[in-house]
């Protein structure tokens, strides 16, 4: 039987090109070579699979030249036509993790080649991509290499062979929102007793079914004097200047926009529109104030009901946008609003 063909993606550090000073190393294809962690994979594959090529790319290069790097690497992978694509493991290296997740997801999505990556749970790339590709849980540094490879290699082979992948807890990947049955070693009642004993003793335990996420936020105290407050508008309704200059996606937005409304007192059909898909945009496009009420707030500003409308508004598209992305946008936006001395925000959606 022919060996399974694997293409492996690693960064400049694991390719021993260099450290941070070499992080701008452009994507490079090394045909017929297993490099760094690739050797550990090769050893684990035994005769069943071989790394037919390794792609090395600097972390800064990848993240700063995202579109080009992605395009170039996809072309390299397409040309090699592997049965499976492995990225990392990235452990706790943030930019490397994001690069691994991004490229692995792209290979799987755009080339239809199954992909697997691995990293530490707190690596930002984990949350971003664990629902798109199989993301193996690793330790937080390269001392966990052997362990990471021992989980990623068999999973990659299963994917290459089209075999059924077991539950996350069996295979070692991060839970990805898809529930998979498996036979545990102990019956449920015994597991329940063990879990209760841990819970009673205040020890860590892991629920078998995490409840849907209830991310409830405590409301802030009310504003005492609205007439001196600086109010900002933030929306997930996709209101953007006409032409959508930053190309915010109509669904699964990967970015948000920041726009100046100094001197704007009304959003008109000629100046603003919505980038949001998934709802009938006619009324929003006709009068974007219906989603982002700049006109009413200018009135209130004039009347002295509010102190000031903040000169910048923030906007993204809520349609299909992942909670992780939304959280990341919100954290950045909130920091900016705080820095600008905004007292309160009106959040609108569609």
């Amino acid at each position, binding site marked *: 039987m022919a060996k399974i063909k694997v293409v492996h993606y690693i960064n400049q550090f694991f390719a021993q090109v260099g450290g941070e000073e070499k992080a701008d190393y452009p994507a490079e294809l090394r045909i017929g070579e297993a490099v760094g962690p690739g050797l550990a994979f090769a050893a684990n594959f035994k005769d069943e699979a071989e790394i037919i090529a390794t792609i090395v790319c600097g972390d800064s290069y990848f993240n700063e030249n995202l579109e080009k790097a992605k395009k170039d690497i996809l072309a390299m992978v397409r040309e090699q036509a592997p049965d499976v694509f492995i990225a990392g493991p990235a452990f706790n290296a943030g930019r490397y993790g994001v690069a691994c997740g991004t490229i692995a997801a792209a290979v799987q999505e755009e080339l239809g080649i199954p992909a697997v990556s691995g990293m530490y749970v707190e690596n930002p790339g984990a949350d971003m991509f664990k629902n798109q590709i199989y993301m193996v849980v690793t330790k937080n540094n390269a001392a966990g290499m052997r362990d990471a490879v021992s989980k990623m290699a068999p999973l990659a082979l299963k994917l290459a062979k089209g075999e059924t992948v077991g*539950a996350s807890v069996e295979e070692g990947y991060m839970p990805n929102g898809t*529930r*998979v049955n498996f*036979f545990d070693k102990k*019956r449920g009642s015994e597991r329940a*007793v063990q*879990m*209760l004993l841990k819970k009673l003793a205040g020890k860590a335990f892991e629920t078998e*079914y995490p409840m849907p996420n*209830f991310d409830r936020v405590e409301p802030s105290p009310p504003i005492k004097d609205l007439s001196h407050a600086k109010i900002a508008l933030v929306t997930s309704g996709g209101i953007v200047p006409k032409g959508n200059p930053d190309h915010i996606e109509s669904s699964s937005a990967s970015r948000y926009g920041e726009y100046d409304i100094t001197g704007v007192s009304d959003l008109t059909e000629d100046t603003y529109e919505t980038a949001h898909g998934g709802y009938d945009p006619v009324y929003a496009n006709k009068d974007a104030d219906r989603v982002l009420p700049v006109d009413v707030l200018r009135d209130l500003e004039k009347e002295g009901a509010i102190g000031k409308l903040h000169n910048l508004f923030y906007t993204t598209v809520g349609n299909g946008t992942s909670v992780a992305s939304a959280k990341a946008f919100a954290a950045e936006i909130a920091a900016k609003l705080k820095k600008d001395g905004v007292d309160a925000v009106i959040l609108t959606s569609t």
Partner: protein
Amino acid sequence: MRLEMGYIYIKDIQFSGESKIEDGTLYVSEESAKAVALEDEKLKSVSFDIARPGESIRITPVKDVIEPRVKVEGRGGIFPGVISKIDTVGEGKTYALKGMAVVTAGKIVGFQEGIIDMTGPGADYTPFSKTLNLVMVCEAVDGIEPHEYEKAVRLAGLRVAVYIGELARTLTPDETKVYETCTLKEGIEKYPELPRVAYVQMLQSQGLLHDTYVYGVDAKRIVPTILNPTEIMDGAIISGNCVSACDKNPTYVHLNNPVVHDLFEQHGKTLNFVGQIITNENVYLAEKQRSSDWTAKLCKILDLDGVIISQEGFGNPDTDLIMNCKKIEAEGIKTVIITDEYAGRDGKSQSLADADAAADAVITGGNANQVVILPKLNKVIGTLDYVTKIAGASEETLRGDGSLEVELQVITGATNETGFNCLSAR
């Protein structure tokens, strides 16, 4: 309260002229067993069959599974208030025939569920592929109403199980196990350092084919109450439940309730097993509220530190489960809940019909929507007529080669919510 359980291991079942147990073999006189089953004039006929682990046999539609037992010492008899006279059970000495079960089957309604495969992939999912099964297929007299039929089959199964159990009365058990709980005061004095733990069992209680009985009382009509956990071992709780094959509790599960047994395992070692609280799962929302209020109240009165809550059935019991969990946690008592999931065939749907952040310790019996292919087996006990119409069976159910494509929900006991099985999901 102290109950000594004597286990008699049954290694084979055979039909014979005379009913008896000899050297681990159960000999059943079909004629005598038939007479016991047909004491009820609502039943027209009954046929007996034997299904052994590994045999190419499919039993369907299964109604109940029962383990034969006999009360040899102490108050009352097996299935009090139903087969035996009303008397509080759970103390003295009881013998159980291990490794076997009486399985009742028969079409009560047109969509009757429940498959037990004795071999193949289906056998991995049902706990009753591992028992020697004495199967009785009951047919009712013409023109009978479904609720009368259900009752007739339910009672016939229990009568036959008691008849078989009686055969063991004078035998010497292969193994003996003692289950003993303390009174409140004794427990506090004896185990001052151990956490006080109870078991909250939710019983399906909604209407025809959805009912459970406690000492003969329809569980819809109870308010939550306290049992000594040994009571269930004498058949204090029986099943009148025929829907949701995968996650209903057959009488066998009540008799062998795994939470009760596993808590007894730890009793006096890591915890003090204080008792069992039973509650119901009614249709009317205000009744759900009352029952969960009462359950939490009883937990508080018992000064508990922790409870395990088990569920039965699909859909609305998710609400009872969450209400119980939330209210008990609000009393400062730690909970672990046992449920199963309906996450869709692709595993991507929301698993439960209700949720709360308080439910942070969940044990799952698996996704009941998971598809499984059951190959054609040589023999069918009961009828396959309804298989294409049972829960989880879809367009492609009966495939060209005679195999069945079904969801786990049709398999008896597959995703049991008392934690009877090893199946889980992540």
